[in-house]
């Protein structure tokens, strides 16, 4: 099964992190990602730019409406993701728990990817 691991954290706190702390976190991410690539769980993953760079697109009365900012204002923001292949939810949870941001107060939402309908 595939799971999307969505990494949420407080962007402001992340931005205020000191240089060495930030470097340390990056290093941990590099090691973590290498680890799940080696173990065969990794399918995709990336860090996202902060929500100050995001744009939301909708359609209202057949007209495209583009607005600045994220879909919803929340205390924690989506900051990155991994797509992983796991045997079951327990395996996905144990991988999610090792994501470096968890150590610094972030949280990870584990969402199963719906299977592609058979044709």
């Amino acid at each position, binding site marked *: 099964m595939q*799971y999307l691991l969505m990494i949420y954290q407080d962007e402001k706190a992340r931005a205020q992190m000191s240089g060495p702390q930030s470097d340390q976190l990056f290093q941990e991410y590099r090691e973590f990602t290498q680890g799940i690539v080696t173990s065969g769980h990794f399918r995709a993953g990336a860090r996202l730019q902060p929500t100050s760079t995001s744009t939301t697109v909708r359609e209202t009365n057949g007209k495209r409406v583009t607005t600045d900012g994220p879909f919803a204002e929340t205390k924690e923001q989506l900051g990155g993701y991994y797509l992983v292949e796991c*045997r*079951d*939810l*327990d395996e996905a949870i144990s991988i999610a728990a090792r994501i470096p941001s968890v150590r610094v107060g972030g949280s990870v939402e584990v969402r*199963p990817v*719906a299977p592609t309908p058979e044709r």
Partner: protein
Amino acid sequence: MNLGELHRREYGRILATLIRAVGDFDLAEDALQDAFEAALAQWPGEGPPQNPVAWLIATARHKAIDRLRRRALVAGKRDELAALLAQPEEDAPVPLDSLRLIFTCCHPALAPEAQVALTLRTICGLDTEEIARAFLVPVPTLAQRLVRAKAKIKHAGIPYEVPGDRMLPDRVDAVLAVVYLVFNEGYSASFGPGLVRADLCAEAIRLGRLLVELLPAEREPRGLLALMLLHDARRATRTDEEGELVLLEDQDRARWDRGKIAEGSALVEQALRGGPPGAYALQAAIAALHAEAPSAHDTDWRQIAALYGVLASVHPSPVVELNRAVAVAMADGVERGLALLDTIHLPGYHLLPAARADLLRRLDRRAEAAAAYREALTLVTNEAERRFLERRLAEVTRARE
């Protein structure tokens, strides 16, 4: 054994094995339901089969195959059917399957109320109406809860497995929490009108026994079973004929269930042996001291206070501190207990002002006691407890005038 008893005793075990075989909760439940209906139709006329459990498993398996065949015709899906047909037939429930089912139902990825409902529905075999009545929720709400939980198990990939060694302690804790929740729901509501709720205590004890049997190397299931038995031994004496609350010190100890006390006490000893004590074992040890004491006065309160102290270090909680303060009041004097109570912060919990009120009453500080009873009355929700607090309030105010 009649069919009803067979359902009570074997439903969960058979279901557990079926779920593993067919790989689907709903299909397994439907097939087992079909099998029990077939038994109801056939056994009275033909007489029950020699091995009713084997008959039920075989019949449910065939019913599952029938259902999958019908589905395969409609949806063109043959994989599940092929997988089931490839499995060897079994004629007895596999104990490991019951354990798998428990861990799946009590998976922390499910909401606590869903864990409880699913455990009672699948392992205990209670029907949706019974569970809804026991937890005082509308039947559709409860049914919806079960549907959602089963959908999550399927779509989120919650495994049907006993967790590995590294995860086992946490997951055992989660299972024990569900069982204790079921017990407390039955126990704290046993003043209420519903007899069904007393049945929850029996179900919880049954689950506790199952866990002790399935996890013989774990000590806390023994601790929890002991704790439940020792509480349950006193259940009949906690209320009088009018349904009014009777305090521990006023309960008729001759009516306590000695069989349950003996069994619980023996389990406590096993649970305390071989390592640092767990939270359930400690609570059970305290309950055993109460259960074995000839009267409230002749209770080893010092030992109880000490055990609460250990419990507070294993499992820090203001409720444990509250209980320790009351035990200290009994062992070392009311003032010492009262001083401890005043350090506890537990907003919204009626038993804190109620305990204060009781200690103040013992010290004959009636005005302060009355104020504390009034505070407790603003927080209490259980009717029997409310009436008890009102009686006490009337006593302290009447005596003052």
